[in-house]
């Protein structure tokens, strides 16, 4: 049984969106830790 095109598209787009979100989350966390002096 083959994966339908719609499911394939949703899978890749959702994965790509989540991946693109990651650097933003990391930078926000970094700035937050930096200003609250809790990096280390």
């Amino acid at each position, binding site marked *: 049984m*083959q*994966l339908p095109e719609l499911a394939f598209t949703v899978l*890749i787009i959702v994965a*790509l969106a989540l*991946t693109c979100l990651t650097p933003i989350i*990391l930078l926000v*966390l*970094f700035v937050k*830790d930096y200003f609250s002096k*809790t990096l280390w």
Partner: protein
Amino acid sequence: MTEFALDTSLGLTIVILFGVLWVAFGYWLGRKNKTHEDFALAGRNVGFAFAAATAMATWVTSNTTLVAPQLTYQFGLWGMIGYSFAALGLLLFAPMAKRIKTLLPNGYTSGDFVRLRYGQAAWWVFIIISVVYAFGWLISLGMAGGILLESLSGLDYHIGMTAILIICVGYTLFGGLRAVIATDFIQALIIIVGVSLIAWWLVDNVGLQSIHSNLSQAHPQLLDVLFPAAVMFLFNNIFFGLGEIFHSNVWWSRALSFKQGVAYKAYLTGGLMWLPIPIITGFIALAAPQLGIFPPSADMIGPTVAAAVLGTTGAVIVFIVIFSALASSLDSLLAATSDLVTQDLFHKKLKPNASDRTLMRFNRYCILALGIVTWLFCLPRIATLGALLNFAGAFVASTIWPIVLGLYFRRLTGGYAALAMALGTAAGLAAYFLVGFYVAALTSCAVSGLLCGVGVWRSQEQFDWQRLQEER
């Protein structure tokens, strides 16, 4: 322009630039290391941002960037989905990390826990498994470095492999865990941005519909949701990932180095951030048939596609992304394995009265020695990356139950834990050679689980958790 995507001198220039940058950064961070605890555990004070990034970046290895596309190319959809299930390891380790920090406030390594919880016999079995796994992973990473540089720039395998080892040993030696974690943060950003750029280009220029339609006509098995060997691989990979994370000092030393209250949310966030990455790197490989790309070695499918579609720019991006992925894991493994040797073998077995300064010096010698031994093993190019790593699956999956039960239940004794790890590994290895790599971890975990179950059922012991709170 040569037949390679990158000019050899450009490849070498990138390596040298990154090398100088990372080693200088490691040296700068290392100035804060005054005690062995600073060096080995970053002062036990790592904040949430660095903690989440290091959990994610360390799990993005050569496997995610080279093997996930390779498995997608071989097993289709299940290759990438199966690979992404390895995120379960990070997600399930989150509550365990919290418990580790509570049970072992002064702990240094996973070996500390096994020795105190189960005694000497189990500790020896555990150390053998840890060392086999650490070298399997280190060699796989060193080889990946050489393969990457050779495939993309034509630089001799031995020179590339030597370069990446020297760089990682260099900054880990100077900066300890602090340098490893700080570089992981930057490497995590580079990896994600690079991978997203390549995938986005493929979606925009080749198109998802076009890739799907080409696969359904020319390679329908790659879209098959009931590919038997691939479904088996999915389960095998889950247990392999759990075994790798649950037992390895790479993850334990991080849990112990995080600030109070950070470990749980850092591993959870790291796992969620890692989850989609193998799907994206796998997707890059799925575009290969349509682009008419059939690389000579399956583990180079991802980089070859990226280099082919984006030309020199793509090759530079891939080069830097994979270099960062390799470095973020290599440095972690060097630091964690050297901690294990320093703390568990040198300090606890050979020199119980060693001063803090001696331990720090010995830890550095260990990093150097590990680098040299890895280099020697990497000299012959012995196996494909996937095969080499899956061999280690037979070992690590046997530790899942002894670690989980040891952390949460009082009844499992050291004898059964040792037996479960030893016989689980033996059964996993038998399955690896008799059936295939995709059942090694599964078999190892099942046999180990069975023996642990018998152990818990037969035991009357009630372990006292206070025995884990050892003074240094």
